[in-house]
């Protein structure tokens, strides 16, 4: 303690330099983590917001909500197993719309939900989804940027179905496209229309893409047994299968992992060099009776103080950045992620300092005798 603190006070320049580097590296770690989280949320917000524990998808749909198709029978069967209050049908369709005012086309994802069920989103402005109002939808607030307002009529390019925007929801997106929520009735109209468009066959049953359920482990097994042509996947699996999600997160995770390795190395090498410079000094200290453990603690304490100090500075910086970042750069750094990242950063730095501690342990007090210069 005594030595560690006084040395840092004395050699301010040297330790300021290391602190600066540590601040930059830890800032980058936090910033990229925040971006990764932000992108992840922006990508999959709607599925992440759903309170479901599992999704029932068609067999061989590769966990992809958009590829799967389940029918009313399967929904009723699932509802009878987990209880009707714990199962909700979900329609997912990626499409392109135009709004009546604007000329620009917008890629969106249609999400069909039961307007009374637990998948229905909360409106931040306008009125909520209602079965009473045919042809009314809720859209993500990002669509405001395209000039969409309450009362705007949007037209689905594929089926030429028209909907009236009735309100906005916050943070609802799928595969980076804004979400458009519609009722079950509108979903079935849309299906009827596309089918008529394609084959002129209006007799077919209403289908959904998936069934969202809230279920315990045993119930999940019951579901698997009762619905042979389906697969029951967890929410995390469903999120990972959203187009682009895994790839995006994979590259970002790799950057974060490398940043951790780099920060460990930078701090380790810096302290190793400083320790080697102080070899004779440590030899003298050992000769006059300082224990190795005391010196090792002193080195580790310096690393600890530096890494925690620079981490605090970079947390401040990240918070500042977060405040000025534009909306188009999604950034999210929750408390638990921040804590986990910070703890890992300090842990990795301490592992790096072991190198120096080992060097200190190797120094022989005998070196002090017969030596000319300190």
């Amino acid at each position, binding site marked *: 303690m005594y030595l560690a603190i006084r040395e840092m006070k004395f050699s301010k320049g040297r330790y300021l330099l290391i602190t600066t580097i540590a601040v930059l590296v830890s800032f980058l770690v936090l910033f990229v983590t925040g971006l990764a989280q932000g992108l992840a949320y922006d990508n999959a917000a709607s599925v992440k917001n759903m309170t479901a524990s599992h999704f029932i998808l068609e067999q061989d749909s590769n966990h992809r909500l958009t590829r799967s198709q389940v029918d009313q029978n399967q929904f009723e069967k699932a509802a009878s197993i987990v209880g009707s209050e714990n199962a909700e049908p979900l329609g997912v369709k990626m499409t392109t719309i135009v709004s009546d005012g604007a000329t620009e086309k917008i890629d969106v994802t249609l999400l069909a939900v039961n307007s009374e069920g637990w998948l229905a989103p909360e409106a931040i402005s306008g009125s909520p989804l209602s079965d009473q109002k045919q042809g009314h939808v809720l859209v993500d607030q990002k669509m405001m940027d395209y000039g969409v307002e309450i009362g705007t009529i949007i037209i689905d390019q594929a089926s030429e179905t028209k909907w009236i925007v009735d309100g906005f929801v916050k943070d609802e997106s799928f595969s980076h496209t804004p979400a458009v929520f519609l009722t079950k009735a509108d979903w079935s109209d849309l299906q009827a229309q596309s089918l008529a468009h394609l084959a002129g066959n209006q007799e077919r049953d209403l289908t959904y893409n998936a069934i969202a359920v809230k279920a315990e482990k045993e119930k999940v097994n019951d579901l698997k047994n009762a619905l042979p042509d389906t697969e029951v996947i967890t929410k995390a699996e469903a999120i990972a299968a959203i187009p682009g999600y895994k790839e995006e997160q994979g590259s970002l995770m790799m950057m974060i992992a490398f940043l951790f390795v780099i920060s460990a190395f930078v701090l380790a090498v810096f302290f190793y060099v400083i320790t080697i410079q102080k070899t004779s000094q440590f030899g*003298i200290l050992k000769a006059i009776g300082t224990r190795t453990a005391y010196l090792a603690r002193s080195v580790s304490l310096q690393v600890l103080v530096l890494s925690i100090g620079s981490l605090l500075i970079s947390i401040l910086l990240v918070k500042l950045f977060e405040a000025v970042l534009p909306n188009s750069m999604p950034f999210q750094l929750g408390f638990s992620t921040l804590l986990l990242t910070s703890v890992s950063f300090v842990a990795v730095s301490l592992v790096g300092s072991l190198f120096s501690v080992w060097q200190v342990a190797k120094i022989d007090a005998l070196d002090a005798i017969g030596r000319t210069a300190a």
Partner: protein
Amino acid sequence: MKNRLELHEITRTFQDGDKERKVLDKLNLEVAEGELVAVMGPSGSGKSTFLSIAGALLKPTSGEVLLDGESILTKNKHELSELRLRKIGFIFQSANLIPYLNVEEQLILVAKLAGMKKSSAVVRAKELLAQMGMSHRQTAYPEKLSGGERQRIAIARALMNDPSVLYADEPTASLDASRGLEVVRMLSDQVKQQRKSAVMVTHDERVLPYCDRVLFLEGGTLIEKEIYV
């Protein structure tokens, strides 16, 4: 008069290729309370080995080292470290102060390592600095001190934990004649006043008048000679 330091039949051999080289051969030494003994000898005669063994840094091949009548050879690494901290004071060739501690902190550090209370450490440090005529430099860092001043601080640091024995390894090597004399005079005064046993390895014949005995390390053992100054 009691001996605070005794070395009995110390032998130390080193492996030199496939030959064994005997550096110290049945060396005997007794240093009484209040006595400053100078050890001289050409380089390579084993002075450093002798000092390392007496200073509990190196184990002899055979023989015994007694500090205040207590053998130090049965002790483990940890105990030896404690022993060096409390029972032995080292003064090195070029002071070897810690560059980032000021004069007072140099002394407080060793007291702190030995577990002395901060308040009593401060009092003791002030007292020793006054005796060394260094009170006015209390908050100076080593880089601002002259060679003689540094060596005086080194003496004060060695005395801080009230050891039984003091070892000085060429303390005047980097000082000019008058500064060197001054430092050895102060060392000698402290040894007398505080009833320590002290051994000084030196080349510097000018400082011998302050020593009670002068020994020569020859053929691995210590031989007493008359001083002609």
